[in-house]
């Protein structure tokens, strides 16, 4: 009897382990909006994912097809995608389709970001994968035009405006650049940099008198900004062509300039305003869709991605920084060194005023961003009255916050109900 039982158990064990072997050989399809530029995709495949014991098929994609494909698989109820990688903002709108990852070990991963990954629910919907932020970059030629007494590592908005003016006067054409193009990430500048620096708020004081000052200052900066900025999406290009000398952008969108000509450029912190040096992290998460063909293998890949060694390789490949505590080796690419120094100076500054990414907005995340982008397009591009635009956009913002029932996040003080817009 016992022998029979053991044999049976062994047979089952063999059977299941065979099953396990065959499933673990299945490729995990890693569907990502990040590392989409071809050379980054290549580095992801060859240097980052090659160390994973299972098989991975890394397929980066533009946001449009990326979202469409996930929604299609969710609607059809079956799919090929095993792991999703994308920005916090894109994850928000997909929260219904993501599996709970509460059982994934997140020790060592930045706690604030893990909390963000819950997307305002009690489930862990994504695990932080990498982070970045926005900094400023300048061609060294620009430094001689710095206004009197200004320290480039601790600039104020006032000094930045004066600097941009000096450059425009000296060269005859505006040399400040801002990524206001269709794919530029300008909304995060207004949300996480301009507003916190002038109003110590992102939502509540949207239409305050301080906000009016902020927009008027930005308007002045814009008059010394290269007018072609409305076509810029990746400032590294214009920095390299020297169409602009000083620019604000996402660290990974400055990386080419830093890597190609490290001796010609410097990275430095975003400027400070009356209420401190506002800045905001960019968080990229990895999530598993509910339709993943092999949940366990996907989670195994996910854990592999948050290992310190993998995080360092990822940083090399994509210029996105780790979300776990790691000691960076000395031989990192120039982009990492230059932007790393700027980030350290920014977050370590006495007047640092860090904000958080929007949470709890669900499907309305896109419309929330549009409030800021529309304010920019109407005030700066269309030249409409600042006060009128702010009042008008504040109504939209208020109805979004109420419809989403989203409480405030930093730097706004916590609220009981939906975050108020004054």
């Amino acid at each position: 009897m016992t022998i029979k039982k053991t044999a049976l158990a062994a047979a089952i064990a063999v059977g299941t382990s065979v099953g396990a072997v065959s499933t673990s050989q299945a490729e995990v399809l890693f569907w990502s909006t990040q590392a989409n530029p071809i050379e980054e995709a290549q580095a992801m495949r060859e240097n980052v994912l090659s160390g994973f014991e299972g098989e991975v098929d890394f397929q980066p994609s533009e946001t449009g097809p990326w979202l469409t494909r996930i929604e299609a698989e969710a609607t059809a109820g079956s799919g090929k995608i095993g792991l999703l990688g994308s920005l916090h903002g894109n994850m928000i709108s997909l929260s219904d389709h993501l599996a709970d990852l509460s059982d994934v070990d997140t020790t060592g991963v930045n706690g604030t970001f893990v909390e963000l990954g819950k997307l305002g629910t009690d489930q862990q919907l994504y695990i932080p994968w990498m982070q970045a932020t926005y900094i400023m970059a300048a061609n060294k030629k620009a430094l001689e035009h710095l206004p009197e007494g200004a320290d480039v590592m601790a600039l104020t908005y006032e000094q930045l405006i004066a600097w941009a003016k000096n450059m425009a006067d000296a060269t005859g054409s505006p040399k400040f650049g801002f990524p206001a193009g269709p794919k530029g990430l300008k909304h995060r500048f207004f949300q996480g940099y301009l507003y916190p620096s002038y109003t110590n708020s992102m939502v509540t004081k949207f239409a305050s008198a301080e906000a009016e000052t902020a927009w008027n200052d930005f308007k002045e900066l814009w008059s010394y900004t290269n007018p072609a900025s409305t076509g810029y999406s990746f400032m590294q290009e214009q920095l390299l062509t020297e169409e602009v000398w000083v620019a604000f952008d996402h660290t990974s969108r400055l990386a080419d300039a830093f890597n190609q000509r490290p001796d010609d450029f410097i990275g430095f912190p975003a400027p400070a305003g009356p209420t401190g040096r506002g800045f905001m992290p960019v968080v990229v998460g990895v999530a598993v869709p509910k339709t993943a063909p092999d949940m366990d293998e996907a989670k195994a890949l996910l854990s592999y991605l948050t290992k310190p060694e993998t995080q360092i390789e990822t940083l090399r490949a994509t210029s996105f920084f780790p979300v776990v505590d790691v000691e960076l080796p000395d031989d990192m690419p120039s982009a990492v060194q230059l932007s790393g120094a700027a980030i350290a100076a920014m977050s370590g500054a006495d007047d640092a005023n860090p904000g958080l990414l929007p949470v709890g907005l669900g499907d309305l995340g896109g419309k929330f961003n549009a409030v800021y982008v529309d304010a920019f397009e109407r005030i700066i591009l269309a030249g409409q009255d600042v006060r009128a635009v702010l009042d008008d956009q504040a109504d939209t913002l208020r109805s979004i916050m109420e419809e989403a029932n989203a409480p405030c996040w930093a730097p706004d003080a916590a609220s009981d109900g939906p975050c108020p817009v004054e």
Partner: protein
Amino acid sequence: MTVDGTSKTMLWTFRISTVVLCLWVLVPIYFLLTNTLSSPEEVVAFPKRVWPSFNLESISFFLTFSGVGAAMWNSVLVASVTMVLSIAAGAPAGYALSRFDFKGKSFYRVLILMTRAFPLPLLALPLAVLYIRIGLDDTILGLALLHTMLALPFAVLITFSLFSGIPVELEEAAWTLGCNRFQAFRKVILPLVLPGITASAIFAFVISWNEVFGAAVLTIENRTLPAFLLQGLDQAPLHLKFAGGAVLVIPALIFIFMVRKYLFAMWGIANR
């Protein structure tokens, strides 16, 4: 004498405008190739180089990039299937539109155009759901069917105008000589329109070759070249952007060059 004089001026006007039009088409492509064959530093430099330095760094990145070959092969397969399907479905419809009066003719003509008048990115979602459910997802045939739909208006309308240009009397003459409708079509009409049909097949090929969005959603493991390359091109450094553009343009140019005799053979059909 005066007649000679004016015709001489006219001849020269024609010659000059021919050359100008050629330059108009070729110069932008020349710029693309110049940028492709320059080093990364030269691409971002100002003033720009006006002739290439034959630096192969950017282009060789693509040629050695793993997966480009497979993606190109997928593109060729999808485009070829699209060619065949669009003619198989489009030419009979073009013939019917040109030869018969029937109820719903105008409706059909508008319907066929609607496929191009509605943004594909929105259609892609329900289509992908359908494909996943019926197992067409991530297949060459599935994508080719979508591209056929995109090429169909061209196929139908081009063949329609071809057939319309051939006098019905020709066919009727064949009937009176004892041919049935099918024989008359095959022996009299088909030889006349075949080159034109080939031209519309070439259109189908090119449409399929350049389509990005549908390919990016409906293929994953069997990605076509645009889905594989073009997607990340926007974010790539400038020199790779241009090289990528060239990698996409050159095969299409070669293809059109190879089939040009069909594309232009339709010229002068009626002159024989």
